[in-house]
């Protein structure tokens, strides 16, 4: 049984269907690259899996917890959405400490992990207010907040957005370490080389449907492309053409 399991997961907003009958299984301790064009339903899927949005149909569990049970789910997951979910008037240290407290992190672990993560990301301004941060600094804080309690599953939406090359490299190293530590990383990004380099499995979403799922190399080979980017373009173009024909 996967650490993330969905069956017929569907989300509708009025007449619009954002996610259509998604069946997904993500194995524990892997990095799952979740790809798709803009508006494909990636963010909605992440919100469904983190309990922030209720499914219209279907079911989903994360770490064995029904995603409808948001309060229970919170102890098992970390989430860094594309807009860093931070309180502008707090400092990064206050923000991460508060979230660690909410997750019930032991005070000793908190004292040890938070400075270590800040050091790792070279977040020297951890005691300045978040409102003074650049996009990249906010992104780092958001990711630190998502992983500080060492959750079973981490959902990251465009985690390298706004990061300088050094920080992006640190981020990639962290993802690998998380995987090695048994954490599952559910990664959504438009930066395909990152997925190609790190992901164990890639899922390609378009118009709310899962078009393909495989490991990056196999997916590229299957579509006779030179890279994951070629596969992405071919699959999503086919999908759009098919929809237009329908």
């Amino acid at each position, binding site marked *: 049984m996967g650490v993330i399991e969905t069956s017929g997961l569907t989300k509708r907003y009025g007449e619009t269907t954002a996610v259509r009958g998604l069946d997904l299984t993500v194995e524990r301790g892997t990095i799952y690259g979740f790809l798709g064009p803009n508006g494909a339903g990636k963010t909605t899927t992440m919100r469904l899996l983190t*309990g922030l949005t209720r499914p219209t149909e279907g079911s989903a569990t994360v770490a064995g917890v029904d995603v409808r049970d948001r309060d229970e789910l*919170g102890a098992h997951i970390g989430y860094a959405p594309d807009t860093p979910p931070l*309180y*502008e*008037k707090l400092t990064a240290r206050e923000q991460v400490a508060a979230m660690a*407290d909410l*997750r*019930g992190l032991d005070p000793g672990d908190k004292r040890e992990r938070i400075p270590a993560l800040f050091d790792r990301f070279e977040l020297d301004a951890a005691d300045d207010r978040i409102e003074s941060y650049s996009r990249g600094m906010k992104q780092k804080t958001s990711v630190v907040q998502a992983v500080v309690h060492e959750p079973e599953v981490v959902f990251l939406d465009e985690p390298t957005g706004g990061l300088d090359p050094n920080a992006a490299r640190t981020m990639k190293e962290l993802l690998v370490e998380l995987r090695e530590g048994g954490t599952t990383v559910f990664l959504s990004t438009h930066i395909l080389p990152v997925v190609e380099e790190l992901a164990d499995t890639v899922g390609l979403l378009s118009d709310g449907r899962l078009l393909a799922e495989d490991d990056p190399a196999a997916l590229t080979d299957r579509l006779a492309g030179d890279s994951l980017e070629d596969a992405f373009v071919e699959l999503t173009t086919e999908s759009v053409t098919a929809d237009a024909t329908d």
Partner: protein
Amino acid sequence: MADRPQSEAGAGGAADGGDAVPGVYRSARIVTRAVLTDLLRKQRDSPLLVAFLVGVNVFLAWTLVGLSGTGAYDFGVALAAGDGVRVADRVRDAAMGGLVIMTVMQTLGAASDARAKHRRVGFLTAAPTASVVTALLARRVVSSLLFFGTGVLAAAVAFALGAGSPASAVAFGLGVLWLLVAVSAVVFPVGLLVNWVVAGYGLSSTARAGLGAVWLGVMYAALFGRRLVAAALAGTPVAWVGDFLLATTPGAAVSPARGAAFALASVAVTLVAAAVCFRLADLTWYSNPALGEVDGDAGDEDPTRLGASLGAVLSPRTAALVAVTWRRTWRTPRTLFYVYPSAFVGVVMAEQLVFHGPFSAALYPAIAAFAGATAAGSGFTLNPLGTEGDALPALLSSGAGSSRVVRAKALAAALPAGPLVVGIAVGTGVGLAGLPPAVLAGAVAYALALLALATLCSQALGVHYPPDHEELLGGSVKVPNKSASAVYSVCLVAVAIPGFAGFVRYADAGTLDAVFVAGVGLSVVVACALAALSYRHATSRLRGYSVE
């Protein structure tokens, strides 16, 4: 101070006789058109705002015309009857009082226009400073005309009808409209200066909140003391405003020379004010603190100490939530924007009902309890989702639990407000009214029950409104939904009325009787029951809330 004085380019261009001046004029027209279109569409697209504007205009027209007392029509009739001296004096007094009120209101508006920065920043990269200042000035003038224009014109027409002289409406109507324009321009530099002080000198959050309270106090004093201020100005050229407004009224005992002098002086003062605006904008808008918000030192408190103190009485998770709410509120006092009006209502009630009113000081505790509780629930608890801003997904996915979030928010409001409200109720009850212990106990129970209701009922209503439907107060903090505010106020008033009636009875009769006990008892029981229901509802609603 001025890093980039753009308007000097325009001024320099004028001196050099170059092409810059037409550029400034043209860009001023473009920016003004855009700003006014934005203003008018926003007003037109909001049925609530349209209804509010119509209501204000109808009320003003009703009052100024004299449909519910002595007004412009009666002045006109008196004038036609040959009482020119008395009419001139009355119009002079009314105009002076109106001028004081307009000045205070406009100053308050100009100083507190938090969105002015956002409006101007977009234009400053494309247009000279003077153009943007002109547009913002035009915006303020049009806002004034929208609020007061119809009432003023109706009063002018009524005055002319009463006097039987259409010519009287000319100076009266156009004169007051011009005064609206002039006052808007004259106080605009004050607004710029206040914003400069607030943003430019990086006042602490506490100082800013204090400044807001001081402004409310000034407005209150001006409203009730306008006759005193007008009397103090009676011997100065400002009093010539009466001669100005009656300049085309036949038979009025006014001096045309003084009227003309006032008109010329007002034009001169307006032009000087506009010039001061351009200079002040250059001085303040381009200094770093004005464009980039400055706050107090981040390390102004020890976060671990605050959390530890709360942790002694609350569970660690609840303490963490309360500490975060306090810390953010301390640094973002605008979250408490809606607290001030409720507190202000309490001051007005005390002034109107007791200080200058018919009741004894025994009513003070009830006023403190009602106004204090309403104020306590009018801040972040009335907008429990919106005040979380971008961090809402993190909070909801943290596993904190919806019941804990609701409890923590209620506690964050009640822990500081409770001692304050109960303290004022007991303090006034003992110090000013000498209440017996039984009445004092009733006041404390009344205050605590209303506080519990306020902090929970506001959340139960607030969770029905998504956080993105109201305009920004600044940063990612959003104001409470107007409908939530209205229903919340009605609910608090309805529950508080029986108890308040009991205190009114006691303040009037001076004896403790069944009306007092029944009234206070009913309010306390209903408030506690509704508070419990509110808690359940807010918790359940938050548990099922979807971030869309």
